[in-house]
């Protein structure tokens, strides 16, 4: 069931966001070291010290680890949610809105893990690392995890007869955008020919359909709207948050591409929010796999089912070699999971904050007032947030 209840609206703000930047190579650093750098950076940018934090939220390292590492004297709330990162935002916003704490330090350290790159396996100090539950079933007959998205990509092609170029638009758009983002891991241009010629990993998805494993971290300060107004940067107000899920949430049991967590997320956000896509200035659909992005674009209502590829083609800005919806709204202007790096959504949220604060540098959307982030995939991780400049 979905209700329009939304007492948190405009009561909680993201006061700041910071990143270490991302590299598609093993650093000689721990996940904790990356998280610490991002946390210290965001605290300094917000003019806050350790004693100003009374809530901590992140996956790995754990909140207790981060508190001890940064010498944060006392907290009254903490949580270690699973990825993707709107889970963390939802938890932190709820904690602030309810008064369990006032100022949350939220972080996400992306880390090259031994089961998603061969080279990460060669670093023995990474073998015990993770950003979530480790894959349980490492046998080839499982459609759990990444394989599940590939399986539904096969269904998408079957149902709509779309060419693989439609996935390719997502990849090329991300790469063009990443070129303007100094924090991005992959910034060399990508052509459609490169996309179509890339190595197949799991048919029908190739190397450029999958997010890139990176080292790097993002961190955020989430506090009351009142407190945020006293901090140095413009507050970004949280309008609505939803974590959508259906009962058929095993990868191979989902009823179809028309009935999974994304539809629930969108319906919930539209019920709770003051605005939707017609009033948004910048859009962040998740892109851990390109099929996810096409589905988000359709489910958010930009176009009909099976039409996302044609929509991207229609709104392609040839001069800049990327998507500009109606000539003005970019999609994932930071380069997304495919090119900035696989941040499990923290990069999308960070760029949304920077866009609404006017701090996005050469990527800045003129006078950006409202952003929509729809993070995560289909099954047990579809989620979204609507944000506006305070």
């Amino acid at each position, binding site marked *: 069931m979905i209700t329009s209840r939304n007492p948190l609206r405009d009561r909680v703000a993201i006061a700041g966001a910071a990143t270490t930047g991302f590299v598609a190579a093993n650093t000689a650093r721990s996940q904790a070291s990356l998280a610490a750098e991002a946390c210290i950076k965001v605290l300094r940018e917000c003019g806050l010290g350790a004693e100003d934090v009374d809530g901590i939220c992140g996956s790995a390292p754990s909140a207790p680890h981060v508190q001890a590492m940064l010498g944060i004297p006392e907290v009254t709330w903490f949580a270690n949610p699973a990825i993707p990162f709107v889970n963390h935002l939802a938890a932190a916003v709820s904690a602030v809105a309810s008064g369990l704490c006032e100022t949350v330090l939220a972080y996400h350290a992306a880390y090259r893990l031994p089961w998603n790159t061969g080279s990460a396996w060669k670093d023995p100090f990474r073998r015990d690392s993770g950003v979530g539950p480790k894959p*349980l*079933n*490492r*046998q*080839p*007959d*499982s*459609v759990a995890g990444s*394989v599940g998205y*590939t*399986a*539904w*990509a*096969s*269904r998408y092609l*079957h149902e709509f007869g779309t060419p693989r170029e439609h996935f390719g638009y997502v990849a090329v758009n991300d790469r063009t955008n990443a070129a303007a983002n100094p924090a991005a891991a992959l910034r060399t241009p990508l052509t459609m020919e490169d996309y179509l010629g890339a*190595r*197949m*990993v*799991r*048919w*029908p998805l190739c190397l450029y359909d999958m997010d890139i494993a990176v080292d790097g971290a993002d961190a955020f300060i989430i506090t009351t709207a009142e407190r945020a107004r006293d901090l140095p940067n413009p507050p970004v107000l949280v309008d609505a948050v939803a974590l959508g899920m259906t*009962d*058929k949430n*095993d990868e*191979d*049991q989902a*009823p179809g591409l028309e009935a999974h967590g994304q539809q629930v997320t969108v319906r919930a956000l539209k019920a709770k929010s003051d605005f939707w896509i017609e009033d948004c200035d910048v859009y962040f659909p998740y892109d851990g796999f390109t099929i996810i992005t096409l589905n988000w674009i359709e489910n958010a209502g930009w176009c009909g089912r099976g039409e996302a590829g044609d929509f991207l083609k229609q709104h392609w800005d040839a001069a800049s070699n990327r998507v500009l919806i109606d000539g003005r709204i970019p999609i994932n202007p930071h380069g997304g999971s495919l090119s900035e790096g696989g941040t499990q959504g923290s990069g999308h949220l960070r760029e949304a904050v920077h866009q609404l604060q006017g701090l996005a540098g050469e990527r800045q959307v003129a006078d950006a007032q409202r952003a929509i982030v729809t993070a995560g995939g289909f099954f047990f991780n579809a989620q979204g947030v609507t944000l506006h400049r305070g």
Partner: protein
Amino acid sequence: MSSDRSGTDVSDEQLLTLFAGYGVDHDTAAHLRGRLTRQLLVNQCASCGHWHHPPRPVCPECWSFEVTARPVAGTGTIHLAVFLHQGPPAPGVDYSTPYPLVTVELDEQPGLRFSATVVGSANEDIAIGRRVRLDWIERDDVPVPVFRLEDAA
């Protein structure tokens, strides 16, 4: 040797060893024991007849705990199809020929699906919409459910 192994004669400890990495617990054990005697067992509710998979302790339709792992016919239609050009190491699995992995909608109930590989056909013949039937192969001395195209040569 493995073909002599009765699913019911295998101890809980042995089951855990045979299916390391499969997530063996009180909810999945019956399904995995069935594999040892080459029976594909899927949970069905004794109260309302609803099937569900993967195995859960309660019927999602009527909340009865009287769910039993029961054999299915093993016939159905391919609903999803991927071809793995790389994947987890497994004996006898050579990704130089992409490894087919299909999700099959079983005939017992709309939306009831089981995922496995396909043997005995060229990859270009394996596609969404094709009819399949269950068969078994051995991997690491444990029977593994697979599908064959219904009208394969």
